[in-house]
């Protein structure tokens, strides 16, 4: 059984976020790109499933939509233990376009199931997984917290109120996975790092697909104001009524 893990290349979580001068685009100069944290957990679990010989998983493939700038992220996935990487060569513009590109590739391939992180650490739209399932007419299973096998049948576990539910699906599933899907992201070992370049990284031409969203403007949050130390409760009352107009 082959598994596909969809990877988003996102700015490192400690990055300083800036926008271009007209505030219509994220300024990616000087940004360090990493594997989206949810996708990293998805990949970790997929590799664990493959490494456990009692499971039917034979190959883990990772895929991303992006320019050549995303290749280091894909090679990191190969270093962690993915067998093959696929890059669809187009700058992703929105979730619909991303899902369409993924769907165009997946419909010609055979996978046991497909795993998407619940959202990406940059735009946090949490849309691609659901759209992908819809476009392919696959079953979407959201908020999956763990997966195991009963012989060759994958069993998915979801957290529900006061407990867990387990389910299996007819047909191919797109799993949309939460934190907790793997305990901690796998750190690549040095063998993995050195063999990453010798693993296949397939470059695929983008299919024609449109984006539906145009980003008009970004607004940065206002800088936090400094804390004021007040001398008396009278002063507090005055500030709350006159400055904050709360009372």
């Amino acid at each position: 059984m082959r598994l596909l893990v969809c990877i988003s290349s996102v700015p490192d979580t400690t990055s300083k976020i800036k926008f271009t001068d007209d505030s219509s685009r994220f300024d990616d100069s000087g940004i360090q790109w990493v594997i989206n944290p949810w996708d990293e957990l998805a990949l970790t679990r997929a590799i664990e499933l493959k490494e456990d010989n009692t499971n039917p998983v034979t190959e883990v493939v990772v895929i991303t939509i992006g320019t050549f700038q995303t290749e280091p992220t894909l090679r990191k996935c190969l270093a962690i233990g993915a067998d093959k990487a696929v890059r669809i060569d187009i700058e992703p513009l929105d979730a619909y376009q991303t899902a369409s590109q993924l769907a165009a590739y997946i419909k010609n391939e055979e996978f046991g199931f497909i795993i998407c992180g619940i959202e990406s650490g940059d735009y946090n739209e949490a849309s691609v997984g659901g759209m992908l399932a819809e476009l392919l007419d696959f079953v979407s299973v959201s908020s999956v917290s763990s997966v195991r096998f009963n012989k060759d049948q994958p069993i998915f576990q979801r957290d529900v109120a006061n407990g867990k539910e387990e389910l299996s699906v007819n047909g191919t599933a797109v799993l949309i996975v939460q934190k907790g899907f793997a305990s901690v992201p796998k750190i690549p070992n040095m063998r993995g790092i050195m063999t990453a370049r010798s693993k296949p990284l397939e470059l695929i031409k983008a299919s024609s697909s449109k984006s539906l969203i145009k980003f008009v403007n970004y607004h940065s949050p206002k800088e936090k104001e400094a804390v004021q130390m007040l001398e008396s409760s009278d002063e507090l009352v005055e500030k709350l009524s006159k400055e904050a107009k709360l009372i």
Partner: protein
Amino acid sequence: MIKQWFVWYSKKQQDKDTLKSPNMNFQFTEEQLMIQQAARDYAQRELIKDVIERDEKAIYPTEHIRNLSELGFLGMLVAPEYDGSGMDTISYVLAMEELSKVDSSIGVIISVNNSLVCYGIEKYGSEEQKQKFLKPLARGEVTGAFLLSEPGAGSDATSQQTTAIDMGDHYLVNGVKNWITNGNSASTYIVIAQTDREKGHRGINAIIVDRHSEGISLGPHENKMGMRSSDTHSVQFTDVKVPKENRIGEDGFGFKFAMKTLEGGRIGIASQALGIASGAYELAVKYAKERKTFGTEIINHQAIAFKLSDMATQIEAARFLCLKAAWLKDQGQAYGIASAMAKQYTADMAMQVTTEAVQIHGGYGYVKEYHVERLMRDAKLTQIYEGTSEIQKIVISRAIANGDI
């Protein structure tokens, strides 16, 4: 005059020709960055959890060493044919810095294993020695120790009192070695001992000794000021029999072996000191941006800001010295002077920077939970072991006097 100019000009043209290739490159490779990130992830995620407790109770990090050997750090410089990771020395500097930022005890365990024990056997050992001893060391199944210092022979390494007497088919080892990092945890010792006293330092041999051989006994775990999570012991040899085939190199090669191996060791320790300094610096910056006095974050006070500025610049200078020495080693060029400069400057710098980091933290810096006091204690050792700062200055100044640099 014209002739002189012509000689100068044609020399310059030659230099230009040889400089066509991009020799100066500050860009790390993708693999080097991945190794740096792997070390950072492990340190920030795992080592940080129990580093204070291990320091306080002087607990050897058995579990971490097992995990780090699975990741490939214990034999990272050894060629893949001997089960190592085959990494370059630049990657080693980056990894050592990241690990030592959080826990320099881990740093020294890895440095001794890689730069002294594995490197020594890989570079100078026989094929049989590599198969038998290097492979398990490179896989991280066992660790190694390098036994040079003695109660009466530290910086003056030629005054070895430990003897390895040639008994025909084996050596008989007697004597005491001091300050042995990995003394208890190691399974493979490289012991430097005198075989023929009349030949002076040309009568010294390096031999590989199984730590569990009959006649080896350990002194207690040294109660150290810093790097308390690494196990340091004195080791006593009483009529220990060692097979002749365990000698590294020709008879009498031991002193040269020790000096050559220590040249590479300096890069490991320099990078460890670099990590200690940059770890303390990062904590100081974080603290200076949070802590307020006189109505503003203390980073806005010039007294603190200038300290941070000096620290950042010194660390950057030290990093380049470490990377330059590593680069020379990777290029197969002589790196003994570069590694001496890197170790001396970085160790002394680490002592200054960690002291300032404690000062920036004020009272909080003096208590254990803020980490910087530990880094300051750890920094002190980098000025002492694997050649004190003073010994490095002897190495450097002799090279100046000889016209080597």
